[in-house]
């Protein structure tokens, strides 16, 4: 039991505030204080990538960032990805191409892929593998993750035209 501090973030485009214990990581604060459990923990040591969120647009391991360090910054999580009732092309592709099996690594992989596609809308398979190499998945064998990201990239490019 320690002292709590006010933590203000822009979460998925909306201003949000919570009282957060100083030692809590962004991952813990998102899940426990902001009520966003879509971001998962797999190790809490920066080894697995399950907790990946976008901090000011950059993918970070939220288990390695203190929540209070993020004061005033923009955090994007899996919960903010869908466009209202419509799935984001990445989400739709992961659902259709078997990119998600148990689903536990999925939010982290999708957020990593989103950052990749924002920088590089037309990545090669090798670039996709490199970008997601920090996201461990024990179910898929990665093939279908790569295929899902390729499909989403094509759809997003078509949308941008």
């Amino acid at each position, binding site marked *: *039991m*320690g002292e709590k501090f006010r933590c203000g973030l822009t979460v998925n485009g909306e201003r949000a505030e919570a009282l957060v*214990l100083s*030692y809590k990581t962004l991952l813990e604060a998102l*899940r*426990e204080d902001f009520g*966003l*459990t*879509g*971001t*998962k*923990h*797999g*190790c*809490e*040591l920066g*080894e*697995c990538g*399950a907790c990946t969120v976008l901090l000011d647009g950059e993918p970070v391991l939220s288990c390695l960032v203190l929540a209070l360090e993020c004061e005033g910054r923009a955090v994007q*999580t*899996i*919960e903010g*990805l*869908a466009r209202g009732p419509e*799935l984001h092309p*990445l*989400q*739709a592709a*992961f*659902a*259709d*191409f*078997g990119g*998600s*099996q*148990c*689903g*536990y*690594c*999925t*939010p982290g992989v*999708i957020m990593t892929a989103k950052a990749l596609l924002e920088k590089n809308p037309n990545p090669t398979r090798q670039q*996709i*593998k*490199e970008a*997601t*190499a*920090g*996201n*461990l*998945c*024990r*179910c*898929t*064998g*990665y*093939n*279908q*993750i*790569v295929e899902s990201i390729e499909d989403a990239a094509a759809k997003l490019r078509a949308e941008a035209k």
Partner: protein
Amino acid sequence: MKKKLDVVGKARRRVDARAKVTGALRYADDLFMPRMLYAKLLRSPHPHAVIEKIDAEKARRHPGVHLVLTGKDFPVPFGIMPVSVDEYPLAPERVRYVGDPVAAVIAVDEQTAVEAIALIEVRYRILKPIESPEAGLNNPEPRIHDYGEQGNIHRNQSYEFGKTEEALKSSDLVFEDLFFYEGNTHLPMEQQASLAFVDPEGRLQISSSTQNPHYLHRQLARVLQIAETRIRVVATPNGGAFGGKCDPGGHEFVVSKAALVLGRPVKIGLTREEVFYVHRGRHPVLMKMKTGVTKDGKLTGMHLQTLLDGGGYGSHGPASTFYTGVLTPVTYHYPRFKFEACRVFTNKPACGPKRGHGTPQPRFGQEVQLDKIAGKLGMDPAELRLKNLTKADSLTASWLRVGSTGLGDCITKVTEMSGWKQRRGKLGRGRGLGLACSTYMCGAGVAIYWNKMPHSGVQVLLDRSGGVIVYCGATEIGQGSDDVLAAIVAETLGVDTGVVRVVSGDTGITPVDLGSYSSRVTIMAGNAAVQAAERLRVQIAAVVSETLGTLPDRVVFSQGRVFAADHSGPGMSFVEAVAAAESQLGTLSAVGSYSPPKAPGKYKGAGVGPSPAYSFSSCVVEVEVDERTGWIHVPKIWIAHDIGRALNPTLARGQVIGGVYMGLGEALMEEQSFRRLPEKLSGALVHRAPSMLDYKSLTSLDMPDVEVALIEDPDPNCPYGAKEVGQGPLLPVMPALANAIYDAVGVRIDEIPITPDKVLRALESESKRVGPQSFPSVPYPEPMFVLPPWEGGDGKETKRDASAAVV
């Protein structure tokens, strides 16, 4: 009435996909409740010790602490198998591995609980740790457990199906090889978590990341000494399991007990380090394999000996011990077969069931040895295998019934896909191809505890809006069991999966299914679902046939319509048919259940290995080996899997590639290994790598492209012909890799994992081999002798003298 398939066999978004890609799915650790408390476990720092005293007073007085539990609070032991009830939620007097839980703190938050467990003082009297099965055989004292065969031997068994030594002696050639398969762990992305609370009616409920809610339910009742009717177990969607969430865990009993004592919700989430200690993963197995063969490549018999490192507890060990041999004769015909197995307790985390349960180890040895045999005989390894295949609907020497088999087709397909004939041996120095095959059960033929009841039950409820609810105790662990149930019921009732809601893995509201293990869900829950849905279809058809102007068995249900088979009228919608049936019959519901067929073997122990069906796989791995560094690169893998029928090809392909991935990880790098701390730091036997960084697994960059062929010949024992796909495709990968390395650089690595240092050592050695050098003297018992079916046996134990000479 037969119809063409609308749902089955079509690639489709799985029913739980949306929840997964939106982050909406609630895993156990995503659950929060008002007034919830948090639990933490204190774990033993010693591999083997007597607990002399626990002083928890400081922890109890720590601000924010609500409860401290120790072994005294749990007088009743548990164990997943009735013959190995040897574990306590918190160790009462003895710890048997580093990580054995000894006390628990329940506090207002996780941090407080962490602080408080550090205040618990435990006085241990350290015992000599048993580090290996060899050490366990040589040191009957100190005994890790006071039960088992003798000393530190947990299980020891021997079976002989026909006079095997005779068969080997009269063979043209006999091959004797030693193999070792290191232990490894499941490493599911989700760490185990549980939330227990007392519901408004005063009953215990636990939501937990378990594969087997039914078995957990039974064990909770046993340990907590309360009626099963007072307990509800909800298996939350598992974030991967692979066998690691089959055993009940100490943490599940702790939060349940604490919730009952405190009357408040209590949650626990294990850390990644703790998940390594809970383990129950792949047994390290040393194997000796003696196989006879004729000059023209016909197998004459095999004598297989295995030695398992069991770790500190029984877990599924009695079954694991059997599985290091029983499925060996399912792929190829061995006229005679002798199998001896011994599991030894050691002071390490307990081993148990991991994907393929006990069978990848002997399969590795068998398939590598076949490669050696083919080389010696100058035969193509694929040809040697094709020559010895078991036949469909045949019996093995050990009385397992092989039902449908597509193994020959798998070998033909995978050799075509990979260009095997044109490319093997011709890729140049450093590059090679290797082939291997395997089989796996579609569900174990007997339950873990003896009973005559069905293995799976399904209830289907229809509502008048045309909605379909499927209730089943099967657990969604990521493999797609909810989707399997939805697809089967949707197909049978002629509706879209979008109108089906699956309620699964909840002992409070779903019929019993034994759990998501042994690749049993598609076949067993699937058959139960077919039966329930067909019963409903029959009820509805009887009501609407008159309106449709046809006979009840000529009514077709397809694509949301119900109509006469000859299309004589416009038919009606499924919703109209349901409304008509409900008007006449009342609320519409039906149940189905499934029990596997009786096994042909009648000898004691014949219950392990039989299955309603077996899947088969064949795999070709391509490698590039750098002879300067030993580095192994795998550019491509081809695999053909005999699945009977793919219910949802997207998921089936995913399971195949996922299995290949896990097999390749085991083959190349995954190791649950241990080391000694220096004496000044207690000298304890500790885990070498209890973290995801140190426990190496394949990343997206390491994983090759996998080309998958699904061999589809529907199996009559399986729902819509569908066999298992969750475990089988893992199994041929390790030996195929080893064989590919031999093709590439001419060295034999007879142990798993195959790491660059071993390749270098083999290249530098005279024998061009790295692997075990000796097999210890194991006091196997006198074998139980059973005559093979073709020698006039009846499936029962018989006297050795009654058997004929070699035929």
